[in-house]
């Protein structure tokens, strides 16, 4: 569930994977932070995340929240991107049996859900096995 303004505010992250990186300790944050959670410094520079990585864990959701009832069952996992950042997202365009920890995936722009028949369409990133 989301609202037009909450959806719109996260567009730079959802559409373009805009993150930031601590100049001091080099930790990358997605979504971007005002203060580094590692070294507490406040000097972070804008970067974009890598668009490929490997699956480090996954599950198949069979009892979904209301917005995702039409989609279930669907796979969601955490992917370690090639720049070291972990990202959670749905894994699509593959059979559930083929899912394994370690397989390589790339990011694609897909529709995540819609707010019912008359609400806004919510887009973002999903993972597709390479």
């Amino acid at each position, binding site marked *: 569930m989301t609202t037009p303004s909450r959806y719109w505010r996260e567009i730079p992250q959802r559409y373009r994977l805009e993150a930031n990186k601590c100049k001091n300790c080099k930790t990358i944050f997605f979504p971007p932070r005002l203060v580094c959670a590692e070294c507490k410094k406040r000097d972070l520079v804008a970067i974009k995340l890598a668009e490929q990585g490997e699956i480090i864990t996954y599950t198949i959701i069979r009892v979904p929240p209301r917005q995702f009832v039409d*989609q279930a069952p669907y796979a969601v996992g955490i992917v370690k991107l090639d720049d070291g950042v972990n990202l959670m997202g749905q894994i699509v*365009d593959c059979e559930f049996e083929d899912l394994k920890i370690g397989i390589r995936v790339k990011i*694609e*722009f*897909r*529709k995540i859900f819609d707010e019912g028949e008359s609400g806004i369409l919510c*887009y973002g990133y999903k993972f597709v096995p390479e």
Partner: protein
Amino acid sequence: MEGIVGYGACIPRNRIKVEEIAKVWGADAPSYKRGLMLEEKSVPSPDQDTITMSVEATKNALKRAPIDPKEIGAVYVGSESHPYAVKPSGTVLAEAIGATPEVHTADFEFACKAGTEGMYVALNLVKAGEIKYGLAVGADTSQGAPGDALEYSAAAGAAAFIFGKENVVAEAVDTYSYMTDTPDFWRREYQYYPQHGGRFTGDPAYFKHIIGAGKGIMEKAGMKPSDFNYVIFHQPNGKFPFRVGKMLGFEKKQIEPGWLVSKLGNTYSGSSPLGLTATLDISEPGDKILIVSYGSGAGSDAFIFEVTDRIKEVKDLAPRTRELLDKNRNYLEYGEYAKFRQKIKKAD
């Protein structure tokens, strides 16, 4: 000289065969396959739509065009299946590639010709010196009414073209458009499926306009069919492109590289544009390509392109169209297809 600087395609991986659809409606599959020269069509996953395919096709185009998206001055999406009735597809695309906020965006609509419509405008803005680069996408997730002839061919796909004056891959030699008011195929507001005029969609519609535009552009450019290496026509089914090609004086071998419909279906606004990306994929420097689109309502846009040396460098910087068509296909049964296309929905 202005022309295509980058091009890219997006084709969903799901397919459904003619036999599978025919089985459900008790139709004679072999005669549909023969009559339409069609074997199977692409089906978008529920999370794919005109907007998502436009973004992926454009990302591929950007892989081939070495430009900063912020330099794109216009973003146009042509489709007859824009996800919103009111709210542009183009702004989502522009935002996703990072072209905003200094950019002109518009959604185009003209049945199957909406893609080349956007291409015409983007190209001419570049030519006029108004913008440095222009992006035009033809994309559709078209719907055919269940059991209707169009159900066998209505498919999904997208092709994106970035136009500019530097690092051109294919120069735009000439353009020509031919339009009339012809009610061959239409959809009223609040109707879910389109309607069409049966055999009226043939000679007075498809053939008249493609021939009009084809003859018109060749006369304007002082060229004849044999001057071209390749020609691409709008592909509503497998037969029409060969028939209209023959009528204009083209040979089969000029049409074949861009003829995707038998395995792809009719991707509507993506149809001739995807034929163009597939042709560019196999072209050589110096090749002359003619593309003539067709949109019901009705009209055709024609373009002549001449391939430059740069094609060799960029061809494989992104997946080729035929690769997207052939690789990793996932065949659906009718039930799953109907669910994906929202012809049947879960009760609330």
